[in-house]
Protein backbone atom coordinates (compact mmCIF):
# COMPACT_ATOMS: atom_id res chain seq x y z
CA UNK A 1 0.00 0.00 0.00
CA UNK A 2 1.42 3.36 -1.08
CA UNK A 3 -0.25 6.52 0.21
CA UNK A 4 1.64 9.64 -0.77
CA UNK A 5 1.54 13.34 -1.48
CA UNK A 6 4.36 14.10 -3.88
CA UNK A 7 5.56 16.26 -6.76
CA UNK A 8 6.71 13.37 -8.95
CA UNK A 9 4.51 11.43 -11.34
CA UNK A 10 4.15 7.66 -10.95
CA UNK A 11 4.30 4.61 -13.22
CA UNK A 12 0.67 3.46 -13.19
CA UNK A 13 1.53 0.22 -15.01
CA UNK A 14 3.92 -0.72 -12.22
CA UNK A 15 1.31 0.12 -9.57
CA UNK A 16 -1.23 -2.16 -11.29
CA UNK A 17 1.27 -5.02 -11.39
CA UNK A 18 2.02 -4.56 -7.68
CA UNK A 19 -1.72 -4.41 -6.86
CA UNK A 20 -2.29 -7.99 -8.03
CA UNK A 21 -2.37 -9.59 -4.63
CA UNK A 22 -3.45 -13.21 -4.14
CA UNK A 23 -7.19 -13.46 -4.87
CA UNK A 24 -7.35 -10.43 -7.18
CA UNK A 25 -9.90 -10.66 -9.97
CA UNK A 26 -10.28 -6.94 -10.73
CA UNK A 27 -8.15 -3.81 -10.55
CA UNK A 28 -9.75 -0.39 -10.99
CA UNK A 29 -7.62 2.70 -11.57
CA UNK A 30 -8.83 6.27 -11.25
CA UNK A 31 -6.58 8.91 -12.77
CA UNK A 32 -7.59 12.54 -12.23
CA UNK A 33 -6.07 14.82 -14.82
CA UNK A 34 -5.50 18.58 -15.26
CA UNK A 35 -8.33 19.54 -17.61
CA UNK A 36 -7.93 22.28 -20.17
CA UNK A 37 -10.46 24.75 -18.76
CA UNK A 38 -8.74 27.68 -20.48
CA UNK A 39 -5.87 27.41 -18.05
CA UNK A 40 -2.14 27.48 -18.54
CA UNK A 41 -1.20 25.37 -15.54
CA UNK A 42 -2.47 24.24 -12.18
CA UNK A 43 -0.75 24.78 -8.83
CA UNK A 44 -1.51 22.32 -6.04
CA UNK A 45 -0.83 22.78 -2.35
CA UNK A 46 -1.29 20.36 0.53
CA UNK A 47 -1.22 20.31 4.31
CA UNK A 48 0.98 17.31 3.78
CA UNK A 49 1.11 15.40 7.06
CA UNK A 50 -2.60 15.75 7.61
CA UNK A 51 -3.40 14.95 3.97
CA UNK A 52 -1.43 11.71 4.12
CA UNK A 53 -2.96 10.72 7.47
CA UNK A 54 -6.44 11.42 6.12
CA UNK A 55 -5.81 9.42 2.95
CA UNK A 56 -4.53 6.52 5.08
CA UNK A 57 -7.79 6.60 7.05
CA UNK A 58 -9.80 6.66 3.82
CA UNK A 59 -7.82 3.74 2.38
CA UNK A 60 -8.37 1.69 5.55
CA UNK A 61 -12.08 2.46 5.57
CA UNK A 62 -12.44 1.63 1.86
CA UNK A 63 -10.62 -1.66 2.46
CA UNK A 64 -12.96 -2.54 5.30
CA UNK A 65 -16.17 -1.49 3.53
CA UNK A 66 -15.40 -3.00 0.13
CA UNK A 67 -13.08 -5.95 0.85
CA UNK A 68 -10.21 -4.45 -1.07
CA UNK A 69 -6.99 -6.43 -1.35
CA UNK A 70 -4.72 -3.48 -2.12
CA UNK A 71 -4.93 0.33 -2.26
CA UNK A 72 -2.54 2.97 -3.60
CA UNK A 73 -3.30 6.70 -3.46
CA UNK A 74 -0.83 9.16 -4.93
CA UNK A 75 -1.84 12.82 -4.88
CA UNK A 76 0.49 15.17 -6.66
CA UNK A 77 1.30 18.74 -5.64
CA UNK A 78 3.26 21.56 -7.22
CA UNK A 79 2.82 22.96 -10.68
CA UNK A 80 1.15 20.67 -13.24
CA UNK A 81 0.41 21.20 -16.91
CA UNK A 82 -2.78 20.35 -18.76
CA UNK A 83 -2.97 16.59 -19.25
CA UNK A 84 -0.79 15.72 -16.28
CA UNK A 85 -1.91 13.28 -13.59
CA UNK A 86 -3.17 14.90 -10.38
CA UNK A 87 -4.42 11.91 -8.43
CA UNK A 88 -3.93 8.21 -9.03
CA UNK A 89 -6.01 5.66 -7.11
CA UNK A 90 -5.34 1.96 -7.70
CA UNK A 91 -7.47 -0.66 -5.94
CA UNK A 92 -7.71 -4.40 -6.30
CA UNK A 93 -10.45 -6.76 -5.17
CA UNK A 94 -11.71 -10.27 -5.78
CA UNK A 95 -14.58 -9.07 -7.95
CA UNK A 96 -15.46 -6.01 -10.00
CA UNK A 97 -18.34 -4.56 -7.94
CA UNK A 98 -16.04 -4.21 -4.93
CA UNK A 99 -13.22 -2.72 -6.99
CA UNK A 100 -15.45 -0.07 -8.58
CA UNK A 101 -17.20 0.77 -5.32
CA UNK A 102 -13.93 0.96 -3.38
CA UNK A 103 -12.33 3.23 -5.98
CA UNK A 104 -15.33 5.54 -6.07
CA UNK A 105 -15.53 5.67 -2.28
CA UNK A 106 -11.91 6.79 -2.08
CA UNK A 107 -12.17 9.63 -4.59
CA UNK A 108 -15.41 10.95 -3.05
CA UNK A 109 -13.92 10.92 0.45
CA UNK A 110 -10.73 12.62 -0.76
CA UNK A 111 -12.84 15.42 -2.23
CA UNK A 112 -14.57 15.82 1.12
CA UNK A 113 -11.83 15.73 3.65
CA UNK A 114 -8.21 15.78 2.45
CA UNK A 115 -6.54 19.18 2.92
CA UNK A 116 -5.33 19.86 -0.61
CA UNK A 117 -6.10 22.92 -2.72
CA UNK A 118 -5.84 23.70 -6.42
CA UNK A 119 -5.24 27.00 -8.11
CA UNK A 120 -5.91 27.30 -11.82
CA UNK A 121 -3.37 29.57 -13.45
CA UNK A 122 -4.71 31.53 -16.40
CA UNK A 123 -3.37 34.18 -18.75
CA UNK A 124 -4.95 36.80 -16.49
CA UNK A 125 -3.75 35.47 -13.14
CA UNK A 126 -5.27 32.60 -11.20
CA UNK A 127 -8.31 31.35 -9.36
CA UNK A 128 -8.59 28.92 -6.47
CA UNK A 129 -10.85 25.99 -7.29
CA UNK A 130 -13.76 25.99 -4.83
CA UNK A 131 -14.17 22.78 -2.85
CA UNK A 132 -17.12 20.53 -3.67
CA UNK A 133 -17.87 20.25 0.04
CA UNK A 134 -18.27 23.46 2.01
CA UNK A 135 -17.08 21.96 5.25
CA UNK A 136 -14.44 19.55 4.02
CA UNK A 137 -11.49 18.48 6.19
CA UNK A 138 -11.20 15.94 8.94
CA UNK A 139 -14.31 14.98 10.82
CA UNK A 140 -17.47 16.74 9.66
CA UNK A 141 -18.98 19.60 11.63
CA UNK A 142 -21.44 18.43 14.21
CA UNK A 143 -24.77 20.09 13.60
Amino acid at each position, binding site marked *: MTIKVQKEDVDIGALITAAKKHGTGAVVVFDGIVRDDDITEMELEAYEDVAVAEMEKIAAEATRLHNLLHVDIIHRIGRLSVGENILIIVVSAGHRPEAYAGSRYIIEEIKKSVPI*WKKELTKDGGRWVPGEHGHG*AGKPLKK
Partner: protein
Amino acid sequence: MTVKVRFFARFRELLGTDILAEPGTGTAISTLVKDIAQHKKEGYDAIFDDNGAFREFVIVMRNGKRVEIPDAGKTVVADGDEIAVFPPVAGG
Protein backbone atom coordinates in the same frame (compact mmCIF):
# COMPACT_ATOMS: atom_id res chain seq x y z
CA MET B 1 5.61 29.60 24.67
CA THR B 2 5.85 29.15 20.90
CA VAL B 3 2.98 28.18 18.64
CA LYS B 4 3.21 27.70 14.87
CA VAL B 5 0.34 29.03 12.76
CA ARG B 6 -0.08 27.67 9.24
CA PHE B 7 -2.35 29.19 6.63
CA PHE B 8 -3.09 27.42 3.34
CA ALA B 9 -4.27 28.29 -0.15
CA ARG B 10 -5.91 31.73 -0.40
CA PHE B 11 -5.31 32.41 3.29
CA ARG B 12 -1.60 31.69 2.81
CA GLU B 13 -1.42 34.05 -0.13
CA LEU B 14 -2.97 36.80 1.98
CA LEU B 15 -1.26 36.20 5.31
CA GLY B 16 1.85 34.10 4.77
CA THR B 17 2.36 30.84 6.64
CA ASP B 18 4.46 28.99 9.22
CA ILE B 19 4.22 31.98 11.52
CA LEU B 20 5.85 31.47 14.90
CA ALA B 21 3.81 33.26 17.55
CA GLU B 22 4.54 33.70 21.25
CA PRO B 23 1.10 33.93 22.86
CA GLY B 24 0.62 34.42 26.57
CA THR B 25 -0.74 31.69 28.81
CA GLY B 26 -4.45 31.10 28.34
CA THR B 27 -4.66 32.42 24.78
CA ALA B 28 -7.53 30.88 22.78
CA ILE B 29 -7.03 29.73 19.18
CA SER B 30 -9.39 32.38 17.83
CA THR B 31 -7.56 35.17 19.68
CA LEU B 32 -4.18 33.99 18.42
CA VAL B 33 -5.33 33.76 14.79
CA LYS B 34 -7.07 37.12 15.00
CA ASP B 35 -3.92 38.81 16.35
CA ILE B 36 -1.90 37.46 13.42
CA ALA B 37 -4.52 38.21 10.77
CA GLN B 38 -5.04 41.75 12.11
CA HIS B 39 -2.06 43.18 10.22
CA LYS B 40 -3.61 42.55 6.80
CA LYS B 41 -7.25 43.63 6.38
CA GLU B 42 -7.92 41.47 3.31
CA GLY B 43 -6.60 38.39 5.07
CA TYR B 44 -8.54 39.14 8.24
CA ASP B 45 -11.76 39.68 6.28
CA ALA B 46 -11.29 36.40 4.41
CA ILE B 47 -11.26 34.49 7.71
CA PHE B 48 -13.41 36.50 10.13
CA ASP B 49 -16.87 38.01 9.77
CA ASP B 50 -17.96 41.48 10.90
CA ASN B 51 -18.47 40.21 14.44
CA GLY B 52 -14.93 38.88 14.62
CA ALA B 53 -16.12 35.24 14.48
CA PHE B 54 -14.55 32.64 12.17
CA ARG B 55 -16.46 32.59 8.90
CA GLU B 56 -18.71 29.56 8.65
CA PHE B 57 -16.63 27.76 5.98
CA VAL B 58 -13.22 28.23 7.63
CA ILE B 59 -11.52 25.08 8.87
CA VAL B 60 -9.32 25.17 11.97
CA MET B 61 -7.02 22.38 13.13
CA ARG B 62 -4.87 22.01 16.20
CA ASN B 63 -2.04 19.53 15.78
CA GLY B 64 -3.77 17.97 12.79
CA LYS B 65 -7.14 17.51 14.50
CA ARG B 66 -10.20 19.49 13.54
CA VAL B 67 -11.39 22.06 16.07
CA GLU B 68 -15.05 22.97 15.66
CA ILE B 69 -15.47 26.68 15.13
CA PRO B 70 -17.67 27.18 18.22
CA ASP B 71 -14.85 25.60 20.26
CA ALA B 72 -12.04 27.72 18.82
CA GLY B 73 -12.81 30.57 21.21
CA LYS B 74 -12.52 28.32 24.27
CA THR B 75 -9.63 26.11 23.17
CA VAL B 76 -6.42 27.36 24.73
CA VAL B 77 -3.13 26.84 22.89
CA ALA B 78 -0.14 25.11 24.45
CA ASP B 79 3.59 25.37 23.84
CA GLY B 80 4.60 23.57 20.61
CA ASP B 81 1.09 23.53 19.16
CA GLU B 82 0.56 23.73 15.42
CA ILE B 83 -2.58 25.65 14.47
CA ALA B 84 -3.78 25.39 10.83
CA VAL B 85 -6.41 27.61 9.25
CA PHE B 86 -7.68 26.99 5.72
CA PRO B 87 -10.59 27.27 3.29
CA PRO B 88 -12.66 24.24 2.16
CA VAL B 89 -10.53 21.52 0.63
CA ALA B 90 -10.47 21.00 -3.13
CA GLY B 91 -8.16 18.08 -3.79
CA GLY B 92 -8.67 15.13 -6.06
